[in-house]
């Protein structure tokens, strides 16, 4: 289940390429799969999610839309009800405010309101994350905003292998899946990319099950839970910590909803220390759910669980302001040392 290390050579793809490949394979396999969104045609997606698809499948199945998220996401719900498998892109998750009703009141509830007689097999792809100076309306994560609402599945890959497998699972799913991709991992040259996100990706179709986290590093002293970008930060921190005699177990959530509570529970039962690293806003977020979920299980903590997140302030533009607010390797190392102090002593 976990991604092969970057060592595995042959087909090292970016998440953008892996996503385009997954969509292309699905469109080949199933004529009911179509793509809708802004700039997903000739441009191939602002974040490269639909590269080459217009050329291969034509404008009937790869449709640039007007700047009308409410209408085209609503249309995706109607397409899905009619048996199509629309993949729709919301360019930035920050734009959810203009179209959330179609997502959470229509797509998310179509199965329930119909008693399962009308399905909603659609994928909503959307970019998340900051760190590159795009300011407060183009850098948000909003993981919890989507995960809090029933009827939606929410996933986010930390590398190209998972991206392809999770997207193929999402397209095959009979339900609406919000597929978030992190801009810092996307592999668009113009955005810079964390190298660890570019890994070997098999040519063929394969699925990564939705709802299953990946334990990407084994450790016995502390559990570091991350998602998307923060998984890479946690892994780097774990390397440093290891040289200090602290072995961190690192969990990549991959699915935000449903949350893989069991994988987390098993790990914290072993380490009895937990830090959640989340670049979304701090309060009422993923970090709180992971900690609360673990505490409900009655863990006998060696240290109080902690979270490293973006604070509860809008995301500022200036790098001098934004960078210090983001989770970092240094912050994870520092916090881990504090939680493990007992051990060293």
């Amino acid at each position, binding site marked *: 289940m976990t991604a092969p290390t970057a060592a595995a050579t042959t087909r090292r793809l970016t998440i953008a390429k892996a996503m385009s490949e997954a969509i292309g394979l699905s469109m080949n396999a199933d004529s009911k799969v*179509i793509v809708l969104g802004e700039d997903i045609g000739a441009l191939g997606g602002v974040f490269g999610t639909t590269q080459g698809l217009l050329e291969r499948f034509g404008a*009937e*199945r790869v*449709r640039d*839309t*007007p700047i*009308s*998220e*409410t*209408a*085209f*996401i*609503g*249309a*995706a*719900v*109607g*397409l*899905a*009800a*009619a*048996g*199509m498998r*629309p993949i729709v892109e919301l360019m930035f998750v920050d734009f959810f405010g*203009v179209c959330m*009703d*179609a997502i959470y*009141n*229509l797509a998310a*509830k*179509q*199965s*329930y*309101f*119909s*008693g*399962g*007689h*009308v*399905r*909603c097999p659609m994928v909503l792809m959307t970019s998340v994350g900051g760190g590159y100076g795009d300011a407060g309306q183009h850098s948000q994560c909003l993981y919890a905003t989507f995960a809090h609402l*029933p*009827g939606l*599945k929410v996933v986010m890959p930390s590398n190209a292998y998972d991206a392809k497998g999770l997207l193929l699972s999402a397209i095959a799913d*009979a*339900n609406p899946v919000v597929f978030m991709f992190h801009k810092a991992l996307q592999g668009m040259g113009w955005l810079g990319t964390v190298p660890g996100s570019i890994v070997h990706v098999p040519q063929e179709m394969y699925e990564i099950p939705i709802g299953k986290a990946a334990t990407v590093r084994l450790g016995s002293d502390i559990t570091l839970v991350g998602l998307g970008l923060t998984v890479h930060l946690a892994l780097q921190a774990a390397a440093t910590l290891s040289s200090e005699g602290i072995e961190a177990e690192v969990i990549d959530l991959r699915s935000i909803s449903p949350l893989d509570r069991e994988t987390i529970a098993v790990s914290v039962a072993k380490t009895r220390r937990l830090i959640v690293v989340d670049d979304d806003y701090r309060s009422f977020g993923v970090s709180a759910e992971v900690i609360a979920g673990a505490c409900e299980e009655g863990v006998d903590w060696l240290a109080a669980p902690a979270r490293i997140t973006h604070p509860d302030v809008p995301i500022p533009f200036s790098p001098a302001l934004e960078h210090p607010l983001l989770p970092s390797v240094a912050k994870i190392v520092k916090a881990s040392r504090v939680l493990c102090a007992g051990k060293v002593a």
Partner: protein
Amino acid sequence: MPAERDVRLHMYAQMTRSRYFEEAIKVAYLEGKQPLFNMAKGPIPGEMHLSSGQEPCAVGVCAHLRADDTVTATHRAHHIAIAKGVALNAMTAEIFGKRDGLSGGRGGHMHLFDATVNFCCSGIVAQGMGPAVGAALAAKLMGSDAVAVSFVGEGAANQGAFHESLNLAAVWRAPVIFVIEDNAWGISVSKRASTAVARNSDRAAAYGMPGIFVADNDTDAIYQAAGEAVRRARAGGGPTLIEIETWRLEGHFMGDAEGYRPSGEVAALQARDPLLVYRRRLADIGVSAAELESIECRGRRAVADAIEFARKSDYPGAESAFQTVFS
């Protein structure tokens, strides 16, 4: 061309059935809510938006539709559901929150889904319009000549989804018909007070599509306007916007005191009740009293049977609340 005799009888049958249904729902809804009205009580809790007076919009349009045509409707949808052919027993059981309801009691009166006739409705104003455009595009992509119809109230014509959906439908040349039931009121706010134009059908020009206005809640005129629009859509001619002048004979929802409504307005509309008007018209073209009465009688029986079916149906088991969140 005007509707054939049998089509007119069919429309009259649907209209009467729909009206009898609302009258029966009204009675059942008020059970347990008197003397003290409490929306939470009685066999049908929650909000209840009746369609009495708006039947011509539903039958005039749906008379042209097939089961494979899609209809998306609103919070005020009983007349449309009936005209589209939604199973009356299952629909009634759903409104009563019973196990035999369309969705086993999960949706209720604002969320009636019947996949067998491609009908659904949503309680958020204008939000059914995008899905209708999508259903229309699906038909086009699948090579079918099926169409989609989105019914909304005139109040919905000021919601962003209206604008986006009409533009998208026009750009896609999607086989969709947007039908505005103009009953002059959005709860307590009049169309005049909320809408910058007198006729929303004029807004069709903003999307380069035909905009048709039908006055006077006229069943045959609606049938004719809808027929042209549906034929155009099936033939690949793209979307149409139709605004129909209709009347709301009840409050916005049950329990609405309607203090905002000019006195005499409802009485004046009742005097022009579209069912009475249409019954007279049918009599004028020679439909016998006996034939009319047998139609009415069949409608009354179907409604009575549906109410009885719903009452007899069990409540769903609590555990089923956790089912079908995902398919």
